Each structure stands twice: as C-alpha cells, then as structure tokens.
C-alpha cells in the first residue's frame, strides 16, 4: 500500500515532467494558448449565470462570482476523475514496453488539473474584485482545503483508473455519475436551499459538498470552514487514498496484460 505512494514520490521527477508536458501540450499550437485554461470555466459560468442568475433569478448576491468559487475546484475534481478513468487503459504504449510506475499516470492527470485550478485563481480573485470582494485572513485555510481535496481526488482517480483497465465501460458510467454528482454538490446553490430533513445526510454523504462549501466559506462568505465536517472529510479522504492505493497495487499486475 505505502509502496504505491512511496514510488510515486520516487518518480516525482517523472510526474512533474509529464505534468509539464501535459500542460504544454494542451496549449501548444492553439491560437488562444494558455488562455484556454479560462475559457471553459468562464463559459460554464456564463451559462449558469444566465440560467440561474438572470432567468431564474436566484437571491444569492454576486452570483457569478459565487458560481466561480465553487466551479473551479469542482472542475479540478471532475476533470481529474473523468479524464483519469482512461489514463491507464489508454497507455498501452507505456505499460507493455517499459517497467512503468502506473500510478504516475492518474497522479499526472490530477496534478495537471490542480495546476490549471491554481492558474485560474487570479481570474477568480479578479472577478471577486469586480464585485468588491477581496480575499481576507480566511484565505489561510485555503491550502488545507486544497490538500484535502487533493487527497480525495487522488483516491477516487486511483480507484477509477485501476478498475477501468478491466471494466472498460466504467469510464462511461463515471462520466454520467459526475454529471449527477455536480448537481448534488452545492456549486450553483447554497446548502441551505436543501430541505432541512435531508441537509445533514446531504453533507455527510458527499465529501465534495463539504469541500466546495469550504471554498465558498473562505472566498465568498469570509468565514472559516466547518471544522468538524472538514475533519471528517479529511480523515475519510486519507482512508480512501490508502484503500485506493491498495486496490491499485492489487490490480497493477494485470495492467500490462489487460491494456
């Protein structure tokens, strides 16, 4: 189990190199280049802002900024899991030809999208500035929430990418689950909009809900994340990553034969 993560550390140079390459490849040869990082979240924000801010008329203030605060980390998570699902099953060229630490592949996807997220933070701050909201002392909690999300995202991506080698339809199932998951996560609305009897269950059953509301607390509402909820999610994420690493190690032997 630990071997999996230790190897990941040993191969951090490779991880870093592949991540760099992934980022460069994404922007190389495209007219907008690096700006593509922002186009997708901005478009999504525009669409949701139009539907819920103008047509449906939500009563959340500075709605577009609110969306953006939750949307960016959600995209980090959902893109990592969605793209990560096929990251091992697509790399026959690497896995069958060299002894390759397969966990680097899903980790690269998570890392690449993490950097994308971090790069789009200035845009988020800028958008907040337009609405008169500046980050304050609560931003100190940001690295912690980021770390928890990293652990959680890695765990989910590890499991999904490892299982997708044998069960090739998993990636399609994952795509659909992520769409559902998006709407049960408070990105477009506040958790208080959830009917009272379900609210507790809603937050307990969905770690992403806790993580996203923590970001919204930090950047939008200027309050500290709920410590107990966040602690539970942190603990759960660590356990998930340990289990995920274990599942990954068990499956690993079959990667070269099945991809």
């Amino acid at each position, binding site marked *: 189990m630990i071997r999996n993560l230790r190897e990941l550390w040993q*191969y951090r*140079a*490779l991880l870093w*190199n*592949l991540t760099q*390459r992934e980022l*460069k*490849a994404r922007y*190389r*040869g495209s007219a907008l280049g690096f700006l593509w990082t922002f186009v997708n979240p901005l478009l999504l924000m525009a669409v949701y802002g139009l539907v819920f801010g103008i047509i449906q008329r939500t009563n959340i203030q500075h709605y577009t900024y609110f969306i953006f605060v939750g949307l960016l980390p959600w995209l980090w998570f959902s893109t990592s899991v969605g793209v990560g699902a096929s990251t091992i099953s697509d790399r026959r*060229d*690497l*896995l*069958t*030809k*060299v*002894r*390759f630490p397969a966990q680097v592949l899903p980790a690269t996807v998570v890392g690449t999208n993490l950097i994308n997220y971090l790069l789009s933070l200035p845009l988020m701050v800028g958008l907040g500035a337009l609405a008169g909201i500046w980050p304050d002392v609560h931003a100190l909690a940001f690295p912690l929430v980021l770390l928890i999300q990293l652990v959680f995202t890695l765990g989910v991506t590890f499991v999904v990418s490892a299982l997708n080698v*044998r*069960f*090739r*339809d*998993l990636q399609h*199932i994952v795509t659909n689950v992520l769409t559902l998951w998006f709407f049960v996560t408070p990105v477009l609305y506040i958790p208080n909009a959830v009917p009272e009897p379900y609210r507790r269950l809603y937050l307990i059953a969905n770690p992403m809900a806790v993580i996203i509301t923590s970001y919204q607390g930090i950047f939008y509402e200027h309050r500290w994340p709920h410590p107990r909820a966040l602690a539970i999610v942190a603990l759960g994420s660590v356990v998930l990553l340990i289990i995920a690493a274990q599942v990954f190690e068990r499956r690993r*032997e079959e990667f*070269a*034969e*099945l991809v």
Partner: protein
Amino acid sequence: MSTTDAIVLTGVSKSFRKSTIRREHTTLKSELVRWVKRQKRPEAPSAIIPALRDVTLSVPRGKTFGLVGRNGSGKSTLLKLVTGIYTPTRGTVEVHGRISALLELGAGFHPDFSGRENIFVNGIILGMSRREIRARLEEIIEFSELADFIDEPVRTYSSGMYARLAFAVATHVDPEILLIDEILSVGDEHFGRKSAAKMEEFRKAGKTILLVTHDLSTLQRRCDQAAWLDAGLLKASGSPVDVVAAYRAAVAESEVLALEQHVARAPDPLQPRAGPPAEPGRRWGTFEAELSGVEIHGRDGPQHVFAADAPFRLRARYRRYGRVEAPVLELSLRTDGGTLVWSSSEPLPDVDGASLTLEMPRLGLGDGNYVVDLSLGNSAGAVYDVHRNLYGFAVRAQDASGLLAPIHRWSIEPTAG
C-alpha cells in the same frame, strides 16, 4: 543461490487468458447481468494459454546472453518478466542489479515535443534522474547525430531519426543489466555499426546483456551463452554454437516437414490398387507399375536434415501389375526454388517387385532445402507413376553456401620471393 548470476529464473511459467489475448474486456454491465442471472463465469481450461512453461535459466553477471526462438516462442514474454512488466504465474524471477530494458524504442515520446524535451521524459521513464540526463544530454545528442534537429518537434523526424534518438537515450541509461529485444537493426548501416560498437562497449564494461534476436550470426558473434525457446519451453541452453546448431536443425526439420506436409495425407495407392491419383499435380500415372514406401534415410534411419558431407540414402519399393515394358526410374533432385541440381535414369529389371536403394556415400550439397522427384516410365513414352514435390530434405552447412559442396583440398605452399 550464487550472486555471480545477474538474472535467475526458477521454474517460471506464465499463462495468459485467451480473452486477454483477444483483447476482450469485461464490462460492468455484463458482470452485472451475469450476477443477476446467477451464472457462473464460463472459464474453460482451454481459455488459458501458456506462454512460458517451467523455464529455469540463469544469466551470469557480466556475460552476454542470447535468446533465440521462433515468433511466439515466449522470448518477449521472458524479457517482460525479467523487466517486471509481467509477473510470473508460477516460479520466481530474481534480478540483481539496475536493469534497463530496450523492448521498444522511444517509450513515452510525444510527437509535438522537441527531441530535447523528449530525451528528458524518455530518460526518466527509462530510470535516469534529471541530473543524470542533464549531465549526458550533449553526449546523447551527439550520439544521435541530430544536433541540427534536436529542437524540432519529433513528429517532423523521419523514422530513422526517431529511432536514432530513441536508441541514443536508451543506451545512455548506464544500467548494470541491459535487456535488448531485436532493435539493434535501427537506422542505416552507419548507425547500425555504431549501435553494435555501443553494445560492444557495454560488454567490455562488464555489463550483463540479455539479447533476444533472430539473427543467428549476431548470436554467435556477440554472445557468451545462449538459450533456445520453443513454444514456451527451454529447448537448449549453453554455448552459442551448440544452441544455434540445435536451433538450425529444428528449423530445417520443420521446413522440410512443411514441404512434405501432403505426403502423410496421400493414401497409399497400393490398397486399393489402381485407385485414382491421390494428389493431382503431385502424383499421377497409369499405375500399371508403382513406386511406394519412398523414404529418405541418413546413416541410421529416416532423416530430414543433413550435413554437407553426410551419407544419403533413398529407399523405395517397386511393383509391377500390368504389362510393363522396359521400365526406367528417373530421379531428379531440385532445390525448393525449382533449380535442377542433378538427374539420373536407372533402367529397372524385368521383375514383378523389387526394393530400390539409392546410395550416396557423401551428399555433397550446399546449404538449402531440396526436393526429390521420382518418375516411373519408359522410353516409349509410357507414364506409370510420377511423384512430384513429395519428398524433401534439407542441408544445413554454414561453411557450404551455394549448391555444391564438393570434396576439396587446398594446398598452399609458400614460394620464395
């Protein structure tokens, strides 16, 4: 268990599921359907394909070890087991030392990136640290002879350039154990020589090399030891000369058997007599007289593969059924390409049956595959029984290329001045 061995395989078997080979993947959907229907997983024993069977082998440290075998004999599987890409189904694989495998060149190359950038990613995948790569970068670029193109995207490279870059990276990994899978034939002749020199350098530096090849001369020239795999079984191992000899004999044998594959299926025309020709184009005639039981023998019995100067014997039975006048047996010896090497006619006596034997105390043919055609007829134009392309044999003689291997002797006497 001595530490003088770099690689030790003990009773290693590796099997694959047939579904894996056919690249059929389970889906969650089908798994769910099966679970709902409560069916058992249909797993016939035939669905397991053994790629290696109980192979025990050790590669001594500092030696160059060659591995031969036909396609699908398990060579590549063995390399992948040693590399750690596969895990053995049974048995153990021990590797002592830092290993680098050149199973495929350019692992992880990205077409949109420059040669320089790809050196880094490829090098790291092959196990080098960034610092090591940076230290050897110039050397790698120089070896690849791509200095002018090193900052161009790899997709603009020709396949030869691509291979050169990949090989340059791969050989600068500086491993203790190097696994090579038949990729030394990359690039043009000049680069081929360079690669060979690099391998020689590795060898001199006391590195262990495990080499998979089809080229038997490479094997004999470069390897200290060799092993031959066939259908997943270790057929022979030892000195390259012995292994190559055993391998060549087996390949020749199978070639001759392929040549003759119809013989076994041709029914014996003696019973029932005067049946229709068994094989159109291979056997025909009026069958008023017949040849049967044709066999090619060596010194001690039926044989298919001969040395250039080995004794050769052809045996057949002759039988007469009708009115046959002055029968003549004609024999022609051809190469498998159809070139006539030798033909001979032999009048047969006026008897009802005879046992015929052709004796050649020394075959005297060069390396190649040969076919013996027989024809029973007479000078008046009767055709009783023709056997065409039914009997073959092979000569394996490395020192006798060409058709003939005559008895010869050189006298070399120094002269004054």
